[in-house]
């Protein structure tokens, strides 16, 4: 071991307090880097797993693989597992009636044949209801085909050209998950029929999948364009065809690391710089006995890197420990909220390596200037132990109004010291920056992440477009499901408001058509507008909110339909003008089950609709059933949705309970991540303040010993330093709070860009109070440490030796 290395290690070991302080400061930075990197990586893999589950873990599908080469292809080393199927196009189901999904001859159905083993491997996740087919006379159908006579337990007739086959429906499958959704009818066979096959595969490594798979496919005569990738999942890990995603992910990591880097750089620089300043005389001595500037330069780098090693190890421990705790609690919360995202903690080498490289780079960068300063120390410093004399102007020496009025000598001395301290400015800047970062960012994030989205009062909502079913059928099916507290069903379509009133022109309005008897009972058969809101942005970017119908507005409404022809062009319809009564959301709680908060609807009877239909150029078939209901027991929502799907297959169901919980869980996850990040960031700055404060205290020891020697008591010195500290902390807190509040408001204004009204912004009072408590705590700890130090220090030794 060289003498310089020995000297580095000995210095660090003998100045344990300073060493520990620096290691802790570095460890906070390392913790932050590790936690953020491991957290991002874990989130990335969790999201990837979530999406790839839709295709049973398989990321790629090859169509057109010849029967002769399928076996060899499936045995390829690159694949972890595979499944294969054949397709038959132009298939129809006899039981599906005209007008229903699957009856359109221009869009015939596709049937998939797969072995039971392969279906079990690749199709389990598709199952919405029932079970997977096991025998050759069983089928699983797309949820879109379910309805009427086509449902689980029934036998259906599948026609392909002249062939007909009878199958028993045993399962209902999702139409939106994975590769097998290419077909709407899935049945199994022990041997696949003749013809080319589609092979789905889970690859062992997704790295460069878009380059590797076409090369592999080419060897088996499969064209590159016949390959389909699970892009949604691959996108998450930056392996999709779109290379921008990969760079976007890298950019996010770089941006986050840059933020941490700046904060860490300031903190580590402060620590190393304080150490170098404290060692000036030592460096001077080393220089006088022949140490070269380069050797001193290396000494500082070496010491800094030596400290970075335990800091990094601590960072790994705290970072991984912290993120494990955060993820465990999030996982529990996700489970409670029935969120299907399974969070997994991924601690692989890449984030750990990046964190290590990051720490080394930051440490080297932070050490650069102090190392340069150390190398510039002249040998004469060793002999003279030069204390830089304070640069004080006459203005500094002049007593202020406050100093002149204060009679208490210790307070007077504290005020004078504070006024004449040149160090206070750098401390004040650090402190103000810290408070600004915490108050500004947390205040902004709290406002952004507040739950402002209004939600349905219904637990379940749904829409269904069907000619086969009437309102009575729907009500009966709902009643048969049981467990419903309240429900509402209407038929609806969208209208476009017209007329002279500018605020109404071309605004969308729901038209609710209800049975005549209900319209008579609830609205006396008079068209009634359920009054919602209009949101506008003023020229100066402010958001405004008004009622659709204000008290002074006329009670006459003109509207037309938004009918589109086959080419997507607006068909010619006439305008209807009608008088209406006005009702509020609150006065019609049953309609709140289907009407989104803030939306408006015109409610009319069936007979009124029939009267208006020719003018509007619409018919009954264009009305959609809209239903909303609350459950007696909200926890039964999943089972209820599943059962309803099996009865009304082509119904679009929105599980509002699940949606609300998902939104809440996502929001909490975001809050955890963002608050965690800001807290760590603030912690870094806080560590800098603590470092500064205590380093200043250590530097003043000799001066304090002189004060003691002339009869100042430990209590008086502690009081004096506490007053100086309190002045500094209070100023930093006030400046930081004002600046932080301004930043929070400004960022919020910038982000909302007039979308959110003024009323929704909350000033960061909580953050300001939290900061005050933290600073009070620092002040108290400082006072205790000062008291202990002053009482224990050897006055004679301090005065003689320093």
């Amino acid at each position: 071991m060289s003498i310089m290395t020995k000297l580095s290690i000995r210095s660090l070991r003998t100045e344990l307090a300073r060493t520990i302080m620096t290691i802790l400061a570095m460890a906070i930075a390392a913790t932050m880097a590790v936690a953020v990197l491991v957290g991002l990586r874990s989130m990335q893999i969790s999201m990837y797993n979530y999406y790839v589950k839709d295709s049973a873990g398989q990321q790629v599908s090859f169509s057109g693989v010849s029967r002769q080469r399928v076996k060899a292809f499936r045995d390829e080393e690159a694949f972890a597992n595979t499944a294969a199927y054949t397709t038959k196009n132009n298939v129809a189901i006899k039981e599906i009636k005209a007008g229903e999904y699957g009856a359109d001859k221009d869009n015939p159905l596709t049937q998939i044949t797969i072995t039971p083993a392969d279906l079990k491997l690749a199709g389990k996740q598709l199952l919405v209801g029932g079970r997977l087919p096991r025998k050759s006379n069983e089928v699983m159908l797309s949820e879109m085909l379910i309805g009427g006579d086509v449902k689980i337990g029934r036998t259906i007739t599948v026609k392909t050209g002249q062939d007909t086959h009878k199958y028993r429906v045993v399962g209902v499958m999702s139409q939106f998950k994975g590769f097998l959704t290419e077909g709407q009818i899935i049945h199994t066979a022990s041997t696949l029929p003749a013809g080319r096959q589609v092979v789905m595969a889970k690859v062992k490594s997704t790295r460069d999948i878009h380059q590797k798979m076409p090369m592999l496919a080419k060897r088996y005569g499969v064209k590159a364009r016949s390959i389909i990738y699970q892009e949604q999942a691959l996108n998450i890990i930056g392996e999709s065809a779109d290379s921008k995603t990969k760079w976007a992910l890298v950019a996010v990591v770089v941006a986050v690391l840059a933020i941490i880097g700046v904060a860490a750089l300031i903190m580590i620089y402060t620590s190393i710089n304080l150490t170098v300043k404290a060692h000036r005389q030592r460096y001077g001595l080393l220089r006088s006995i022949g140490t070269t500037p380069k050797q001193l330069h290396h000494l500082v780098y070496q010491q800094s890197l030596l400290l970075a090693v335990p800091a990094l190890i601590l960072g790994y421990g705290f970072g991984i420990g912290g993120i494990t705790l955060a993820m465990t609690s999030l996982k529990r919360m996700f489970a409670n909220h029935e969120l299907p995202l399974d969070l997994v903690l991924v601690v692989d080498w890449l984030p750990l390596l990046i964190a290590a490289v990051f720490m080394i780079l930051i440490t080297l960068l932070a050490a650069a200037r102090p190392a340069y300063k150390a190398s510039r120390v002249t040998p004469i410093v060793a002999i003279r132990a030069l204390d830089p004399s304070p640069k004080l102007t006459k203005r500094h020496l002049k007593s202020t109004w406050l100093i002149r009025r204060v009679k208490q000598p210790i307070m007077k001395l504290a005020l004078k010291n504070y006024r004449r301290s040149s160090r206070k400015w750098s401390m004040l800047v650090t402190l103000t920056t810290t408070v600004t970062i915490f108050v500004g960012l947390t205040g902004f994030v709290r406002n952004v992440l507040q739950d402002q989205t209004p939600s349905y009062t219904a637990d379940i909502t749904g829409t269904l477009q069907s000619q086969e079913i009437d309102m009575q059928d729907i009500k009966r099916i709902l009643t048969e499901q049981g467990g419903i507290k309240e429900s509402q069903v209407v038929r609806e379509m969208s209208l476009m408001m017209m007329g002279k009133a500018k605020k109404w022109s071309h605004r969308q309005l729901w038209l609710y058509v209800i049975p005549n008897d209900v319209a008579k009972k609830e609205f006396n058969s008079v068209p009634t507008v359920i009054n919602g809101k209009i949101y506008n942005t003023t020229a100066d970017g402010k958001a405004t909110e008004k009622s659709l119908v204000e008290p002074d507005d006329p009670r006459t409404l003109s509207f037309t339909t938004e009918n589109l022809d086959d080419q997507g062009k607006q068909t010619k319809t006439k305008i209807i003008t009608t008088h209406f009564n006005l009702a509020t959301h609150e006065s019609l709680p049953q309609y709140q089950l289907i009407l989104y908060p803030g939306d408006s609807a015109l409610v009319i009877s069936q007979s009124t609709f029939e009267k208006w239909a020719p003018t509007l150029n619409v018919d009954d078939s264009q009305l959609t059933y809209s239903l909303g209901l609350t459950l007696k027991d909200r926890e039964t929502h999943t089972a209820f949705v599943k059962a309803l799907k099996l009865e009304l297959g082509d119904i679009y169901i929105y599980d509002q309970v699940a949606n609300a919980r998902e939104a809440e869980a996502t929001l909490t996850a975001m809050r955890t991540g963002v608050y965690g990040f800001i807290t760590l960031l603030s912690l870094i700055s806080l560590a800098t303040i603590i470092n500064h404060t205590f380093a200043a205290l250590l530097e003043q020891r000799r001066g304090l010993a002189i004060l003691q020697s002339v009869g100042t008591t430990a209590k008086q010195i502690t009081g004096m330093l506490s007053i100086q500290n309190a002045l500094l902390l209070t100023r930093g807190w006030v400046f930081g709070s004002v600046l932080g509040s301004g930043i929070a408001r400004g960022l919020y204004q910038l982000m909302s860009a007039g979308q959110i009204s003024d009323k929704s912004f909350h000033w960061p009072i909580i953050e300001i109070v939290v900061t005050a408590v933290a600073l009070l705590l620092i002040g108290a700890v400082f006072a205790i440490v000062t008291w202990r130090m002053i009482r224990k220090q050897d006055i004679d030794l301090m005065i003689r030796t320093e």
Partner: protein
Amino acid sequence: MSILTATDLVKDYSGEERPALDHVSLAIEPGEFVAIVGPSGSGKSTLLHLLGGVDRPTSGTVQLYDTDLYSLNETQLAIFRRRQVGLIYQFYNLIPNLTVAENITLPAELDGKSIPQAELTALLASLGLVNKADALPSQLSGGQQQRVAIGRALINQPAIVLADEPTGNLDQRNSQEIMRLLHYANVKEGQTIVVITHDPLIAQQASRVITIEDGQLQPSEG
């Protein structure tokens, strides 16, 4: 040929009315034991620092053998100091977290040299520190610490040893012991030594005494 030649040395400190050193010239011969005396603030420490390449003059030159010290850059000067100059301070200036042996061998190790154990033991014995080789400076008395500083100054067998008030912080007995060691190095090893002192008893032991007042050398009395 002189081992050390200072020519027309001037050292000005900003803010001071007169220079700390005012056109000082002197020459020191090999094997000389020179004492520089003078009242406080006369410039003797400044002169010593300039002779040792610790500080830079405002003008003038210092030559050690053929080398003009101040024509060297910082790195060259550091290496030169390490090999050719041994410095001893009043307050010892040892590295507190290195042992006695490590403090003594520090200049040699900085130079990448390894001191054989026998050589080190012999040096420690001559300093009376054999049993203290592994002690830290804080475990030593003032006299012992100054002996370590002498060992450190001598380890690289420099061309010249410069001692700034080496006994200024010691009692009579320890002062004599330090002077005995310096004399030993001077007589037995032929080591050139320059000592700054206030103490007339110490100055008497030198082969030549140079007096300095107000930054200027005074004519020699003997």
